[in-house]
């Protein structure tokens, strides 16, 4: 599905955080491209996966030093773009879904009002039109009783419901890219599957690109087309999700093998041995 010009192009991205005792290299030479497809970025905590996602939206704290040969969204050079241009990009052409809707939704506004605001920030809409559009969006994220949810405050919603509202909000301005950063790790397994298939469905229907950031390798493999495995700020391996079980890199294999299994019994779990050679600079 990759077109000639990918939607997102990242080449040799570096993110450093200078501190009193030294420089922390969070991302070290990451390159990838996203077309109209679903890319999963997988890694353990500290691998730099979230920082990569945030660098794309320029949402990193001021102390971060971002370098890249190419960091481009559509025709916008993210390294050069002005703040106004970035604002139009964030929540306009790029939507961001975070881990816990409890913290990412405004607690003193109803769900409907937040979606309406997201709509009106990018389109000229009357009050009534915005309400109708918000209800339509809530329905599209498979909320059975959109009217009740529309008038509910975030604390009155369950985790799964809150995440649906969050998704509806991010879909409001018709983004071209959806970045989902651990969208389901705060949710139960049953809800997790529903939310991910919802994201999948919306991405497919709207022809969006998806960047799914997660620590859960099997989960990502299930819902993405391609998977990039990150470790210590570098991409270890990038492969089609369907071929994950034939992964070649020792790190990817290690991550898969150290999971306890329900179907087969194992006395001891194999543990991951981190090889310093993985971090050797590559051409």
């Amino acid at each position: 599905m990759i077109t000639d010009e990918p939607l997102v192009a990242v080449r040799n991205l570096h993110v450093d955080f200078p501190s009193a005792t030294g420089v922390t290299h969070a991302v070290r030479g990451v390159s990838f491209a996203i077309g109209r497809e679903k890319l999963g970025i997988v890694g353990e905590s500290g691998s730099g996966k979230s920082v990569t996602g945030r660098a794309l939206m320029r949402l990193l704290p001021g102390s971060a030093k971002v370098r890249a040969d190419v960091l481009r969204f559509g025709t916008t050079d993210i390294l050069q773009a002005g703040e106004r241009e970035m604002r139009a990009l964030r929540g306009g052409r790029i939507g961001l879904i975070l881990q816990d809707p409890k913290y990412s939704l405004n607690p003193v506004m109803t769900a409907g009002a937040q979606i309406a605001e997201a709509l009106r920030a990018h389109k000229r809409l009357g009050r009534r039109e915005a309400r109708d559009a918000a209800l339509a969006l809530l329905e599209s994220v498979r909320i059975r009783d959109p009217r009740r949810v529309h008038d509910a405050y975030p604390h009155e919603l369950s985790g799964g419901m809150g995440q649906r509202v969050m998704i509806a909000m991010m879909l409001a301005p018709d983004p071209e890219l959806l970045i989902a950063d651990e969208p389901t790790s705060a949710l139960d397994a049953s809800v997790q599957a529903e939310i991910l298939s919802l994201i999948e469905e919306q991405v497919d229907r709207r022809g969006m690109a998806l960047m799914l950031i997660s620590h859960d390798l099997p989960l990502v493999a299930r819902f993405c087309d391609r998977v990039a495995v990150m470790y210590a700020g570098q991409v270890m391996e990038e492969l089609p999700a369907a071929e994950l079980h034939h992964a070649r890199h020792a790190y990817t294999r290690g991550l898969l093998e150290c999971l306890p299994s329900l179907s087969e019994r194992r006395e001891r779990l194999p543990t991951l041995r981190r090889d310093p050679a993985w971090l050797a600079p590559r051409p």
Partner: protein
Amino acid sequence: MIDVQKLDIRFGANHAVRGVSFQVGQGETFGLVGESGSGKSTVLRAIAGLVTDWTGRIAVDGQSLGRKRDRAFFRTVQMVFQDPYGSLHPRQTVDRILSEPLVVHGVKDADARIARALEEVALPRTARFRYPHQLSGGQRQRVAIARALVADPRVLLLDEPTSALDVSVQAEVLNLLADLRAARGLTCILVSHNLAVVAHLCGRLAVMQGGQIVEQLDEAALRAGRAVHPHTQDLIRLSRVLEEPAG
């Protein structure tokens, strides 16, 4: 070793646990599985004495327990919490954290015991005088396990001990728990939402939903998928889906 009968817990209007009964034999590891809000952690906290508003019967080692526990109880029963970032005192060094139970119980050879406990959980000696924020998540959980074991308990209550950890660290901690359990003959109760983790450590388990135990089964039945209750079947199916190769 542990006998829970008709355990009922209410928090105001919220009826969190409804008539839960189960037994755990000496040296056995028992799993409590369920989704968030199913009451599994509340049951564990009631056994630990951290939740006091319960009715029913909780007995450990043949002795019925009251709401207030004496010091001897805490020498028998210890607990490891879910969040290694929250369960260690941020202003205390590892050394101080481990010495606390020894001071309370008036144990003599504290210094040697702390050194031994650190060794047992495979923490380097250099970690002894560090603060929790200087340790990684996995190292912190090892400290928490060492704290639970330093005064030689016979029962270990595990509340989602690996759910806040990376999978590679989870494997290390699960192996460690299995080793310690075998070496010390511990009786354990493991609370988790992850069926694979429970199947890995537990011989028997109970599935909870809405504050009730809907089904009890053993490891073999779980792995074979011989569950009767639809909720258990749901959980098994969801867990399987992610294990199969994506297609």
